[in-house]
């Protein structure tokens, strides 16, 4: 269980597996995914839509809803305080300063959202409650943390002592509210911090009165309310205009550096990855197929899928860009239709006989910082051993 | 008119939704007994037999001790000016001749339910059909022409909605009274098929030769409920008139009526039919309420029979209970079918109407 990690590791996710139990059958959305997040870095997770990027992030912060379920894996968070607390009761969940969140009670995991983890989503308009003011929504995120620091234990109960009765009183009795004036002031500060002009006025406006870019800024402010250590940003710019995209990315980078926090940036856009990230993981069909430092992965891609992806972006320096879209479709991730072989073999230009066996993650040319789930990590493509389609048998649901 | 895609999504909805199957089964059974009433009814629904009055349903027979007057030669006996009574055990026997019991006049409740289903379904289907005809015509016209025509038609529809449906229905019946009552002959009885079938099986013969078609009620429920169809048809027409094939038809010089009924209507049919299913249920409920209130001329009807049973509410609960159960089961069946169609076809309408 103890893996030799990097000394700056903040979060180590190991073999995380998430399934969705739908009417069509079991969907293997996240398949034995491992990655680590270090202090003060931006980790990119890149992949096509449907490759399991978002579910991976949701699984890491325990936000997978029915019919989805996390079925395996470990999520080690560096937190000396928690480690100390559980060392006696749950020694198997503690490793040095790290605790395995998957083994901790639900209440403890829930209380980590806000102060340890936070997340921003693709579409800011649907990520805010349309019938409350933006300020109020940020203030409640602040308020939760304020109350938590006043009474740490209460945060772990299901309702935090805030049930239907109190809610009714707070909404019916004039002058009573869940949020305090201090939280509102802090919300305005946060809005100011993310570059929203006239934060005092804007705090009292509703989401529909904001532009997409401003609202995405407000969402960043909301995510910062708990001063998280790791911020997951799920396609934060996809829904925005091109000109606004750059501003939001700059904001994320500035905030990351100011706060000294880590960001996990999920995107399908390799340009964004190249511009923002220190390290990157490439996902395909629910698996991380290649990961390593940005330079290692981008300059020396090992997995044919990564190579294909990189080949499909126009190169600014190359006047005649090679466009090599990868033929075929992303598998639908239905358990009944997933083959035993490498998931990419059917589309892979370099599939070999060894690919009939599902590959493990392995170090690329012995470099532990760069791994790929591919036989080519420590082998060369050999046309003599190439796989032809007749060797695919069953399992792909045709 | 029904695309294969539509059929596929209906089937998928059905395989996911066990309740939809229950709904279809209920509707099929009710339709079957209503159509073949003269074959399946165990007894004549209208023939009184006071000797068998108020027999309980199977499973509810009981013996009670009651104080009854002593009779000699058929007359009560007086002693010191008081009627002489004795305690006697009174048996309330049920029999398989009347599985759901008998009413206050000794008529077989099951047979009345079966014949009552005819009235309910006749009103349900004809009323919905008429409402659909009026509503769709108005709605298509409003949506197709837009502008002033639309304003006038749809504002009048809004005014109709200011009246609760039952209230407007009562007022209309007050005006029309029973001017439109019809009686339709029962082909199975007229041709002698049903009587022959019954005597071969040894069932009582002499089934009613005709069924009442409560024309006033049908017209009234249609006048009350057309508005829902108008709203849906208008919405469809408004969006379909912008479709290129409609514009093309207009450019080719097709006249408005033919565009509306040949191009717009077929493509608006799904939501209209889904609404129709829901409306049948609503109209059956409305009909039962009107006949319960005594506003229907049909002398065998679920609502009417519930009202008849009220005078026996302390002695024979089943007279009112059984027809009500028949209504509930039929309406549940129709609502389940309506839910299934709505979920599978997603025409974007909410359940509307009701008593």
């Amino acid at each position, binding site marked *: 269980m103890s893996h030799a990690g990097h000394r700056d590791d903040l979060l180590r996710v190991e073999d995380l597996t998430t399934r969705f139990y739908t009417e069509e059958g079991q969907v293997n959305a996240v398949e034995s995914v491992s990655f680590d997040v270090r202090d003060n870095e931006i980790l990119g997770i890149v992949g096509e839509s449907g490759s399991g990027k978002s579910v991976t992030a949701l699984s890491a912060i325990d936000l997978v809803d029915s019919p989805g379920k996390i079925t395996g894996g470990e999520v080690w968070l560096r937190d000396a305080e928690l480690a100390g607390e559980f060392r006696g009761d749950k020694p198997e969940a503690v490793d040095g300063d790290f605790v395995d969140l998957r083994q901790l009670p639900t209440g403890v995991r829930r209380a980590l959202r806000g102060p340890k983890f936070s997340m921003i989503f693709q579409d800011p308009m649907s990520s805010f409650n349309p019938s409350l003011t933006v300020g109020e929504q940020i203030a409640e995120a602040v308020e939760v943390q304020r109350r938590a620091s006043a009474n740490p234990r209460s945060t772990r109960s299901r309702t935090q002592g805030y049930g239907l009765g109190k809610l009714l009183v707070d909404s019916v009795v004039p002058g009573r509210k869940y949020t305090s004036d201090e939280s509102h002031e802090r919300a305005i500060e946060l809005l100011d911090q993310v570059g929203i002009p006239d934060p005092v006025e804007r705090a009292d406006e509703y989401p529909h009165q904001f532009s997409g870019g401003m609202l995405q800024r407000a969402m960043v402010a909301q995510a910062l309310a708990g001063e998280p250590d790791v911020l997951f940003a799920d396609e934060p710019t996809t829904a925005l205009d091109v000109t606004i995209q750059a501003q939001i990315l700059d904001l994320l980078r500035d905030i990351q550096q100011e706060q000294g926090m880590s960001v996990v940036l999920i995107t399908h856009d390799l340009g964004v990855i190249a511009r923002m990230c220190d390290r990157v993981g490439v996902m395909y069909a629910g698996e991380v197929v290649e990961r390593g430092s940005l330079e290692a992965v981008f300059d020396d891609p090992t997995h044919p899928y990564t190579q294909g992806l990189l080949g499909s972006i126009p190169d600014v320096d190359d006047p005649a860009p090679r466009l090599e879209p990868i033929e075929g479709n992303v598998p639908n991730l239905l358990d009944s239709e997933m083959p035993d072989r490498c998931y990419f073999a059917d589309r892979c230009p370099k599939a070999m006989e060894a690919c009939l066996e599902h590959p493990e993650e392995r170090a690329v040319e012995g470099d532990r910082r760069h791994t790929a789930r591919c036989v080519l990590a420590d082998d060369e493509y050999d046309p003599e051993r190439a796989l032809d389609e007749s060797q695919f048998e069953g399992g792909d649901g045709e | 008119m029904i695309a294969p895609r539509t059929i596929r999504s209906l089937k998928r909805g059905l395989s996911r939704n066990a309740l939809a199957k229950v709904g279809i089964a209920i509707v099929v059974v009710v339709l079957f007994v209503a159509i073949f009433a003269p074959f399946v009814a165990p007894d004549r629904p209208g023939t009184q037999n006071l000797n068998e009055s108020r027999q309980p349903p199977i499973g509810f027979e009981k013996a009670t001790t009651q104080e009854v007057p002593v009779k000699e030669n058929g007359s009560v006996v007086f002693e010191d000016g008081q009627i002489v009574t004795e305690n006697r055990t009174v048996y309330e026997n049920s029999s398989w001749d009347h599985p759901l019991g008998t009413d206050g006049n000794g008529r077989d409740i099951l047979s009345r339910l079966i014949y009552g289903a005819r009235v309910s379904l006749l009103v349900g289907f004809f009323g919905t059909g008429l409402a659909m005809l009026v509503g769709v015509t108005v709605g298509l016209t409003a949506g197709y022409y837009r502008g002033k025509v639309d304003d006038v038609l749809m504002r009048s529809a809004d005014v109709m909605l200011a009246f609760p449906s039952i209230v407007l229905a009562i007022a209309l019946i007050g005006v029309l009274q029973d001017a439109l009552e019809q009686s339709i002959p029962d082909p199975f009885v007229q041709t002698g098929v049903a009587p022959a079938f019954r005597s071969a099986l040894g069932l009582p013969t002499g089934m009613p030769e005709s069924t009442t078609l409560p024309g006033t009620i049908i017209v009234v429920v249609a006048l009350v409920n057309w508005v829902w169809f108008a709203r849906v048809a208008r919405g469809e027409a408004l969006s379909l008139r912008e479709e290129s094939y409609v514009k093309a038809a207009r450019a080719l010089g097709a006249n408005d009526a033919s565009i509306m009924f040949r191009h717009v209507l077929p493509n608006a049919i799904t939501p209209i039919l889904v609404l129709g299913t829901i409306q049948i249920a609503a109209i059956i409920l409305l009909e039962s309420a009107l006949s319960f209130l005594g506003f229907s001329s049909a002398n065998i009807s679920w609502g009417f029979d519930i009202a008849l049973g009220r005078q026996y509410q302390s002695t024979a*609960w089943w007279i009112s209970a059984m027809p009500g159960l028949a209504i509930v089961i039929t309406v549940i069946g129709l609502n389940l079918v309506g839910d299934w169609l709505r979920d599978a076809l997603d025409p974007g309408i909410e359940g509307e109407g009701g008593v």
Partner: protein
Amino acid sequence: MSLARFLIKRLLQGVFVVWGVVTIVFGLRVIAPGDPANVLLPPDVGPEVRQQVIADLGLDQPLYVQYWEFVSGIALGVPEGLFNIATGQPVGGLGLGTSLTTGTSVASRVGRSLPATLELAIMATVVAVVIAIPLGVISATNRYSVPDYGATLFSLAGISTPNFWLGVMLIIVLAVQLDLFPTSQRAIGIPGVVDLLVSGQLVAAAEGFRTWLWYITLPAITLGTYFTALITRLTRSGMLDELGKTYVRASRAKGLPDALVRYKHVLRNTLIPIITVVGLQLGTLIGGAVITEFVFDWPGLGQVLINSINSRDWPMVQGSLIVIAVGFVVVNIVVDTLYTLVNPRVGFD
């Protein structure tokens, strides 16, 4: 748009609808088959009286004159020149005219029966909301559990059960067999209780209130069940819909406790659209009240309507129709305003 302008616009629309209602009510006598006098008059009046009523009602006048008289009579309250059948004396009617069977003012008769109907409708709504919203919430937040199936089944049965039959069954089981409640009628109304209270008879007022509650329970359940089932259904599906939205996930991601997300965010947003549906369905509620009053012999507007149809007391029919429809229009304006006030997404336009 400001609230005042919104209200003015909505009221003008309301006035238009009321004019439409009045026109339809007038139109009813026009569509009557045969001589409209047959519909408008009790069947047992003598020929002289009949002639006089026809003259007084203006039935011998051209339609447009009749229509003008009718509309202006209602709008301005000028005497319609009706007369009392019992005494044969003409009486000046108020806007709504005079009853043909009792000779009393329609407006006052309708006015007297209004509190009974309002009490019933309000009680039914309260019962429905108090039961349905928690039931819908439990159902949606414990999906596929026993309570969820129970609530779903209840709501399916509830919207499929005719309320008059439910009323009859409640009477048979709870009033006749178990003798827990009275079978029918209204021994005392809220105005009566208030009178006692005002005159300082506190014990009698408390007793009166208890009696009122005792009498109204079964009618309120009868009238409220369809509504309860409907709101349960809407709350459940609305809440499931809302729970699937991204902002719920975002709220949890920022650390909000489940209860706060569930009630402050999700339930609130679920209830906003339910307000409009409930408003639209108030017509159903008033219609249901008519039948419920008939079943329980409850002395409200519905009773007046049914009795006057049966006795062909046409002015009374017209009066109750107009009052019911206007009531519905007013309630709808109130609901619309409320909806606009609680929902920041729609402005007053």
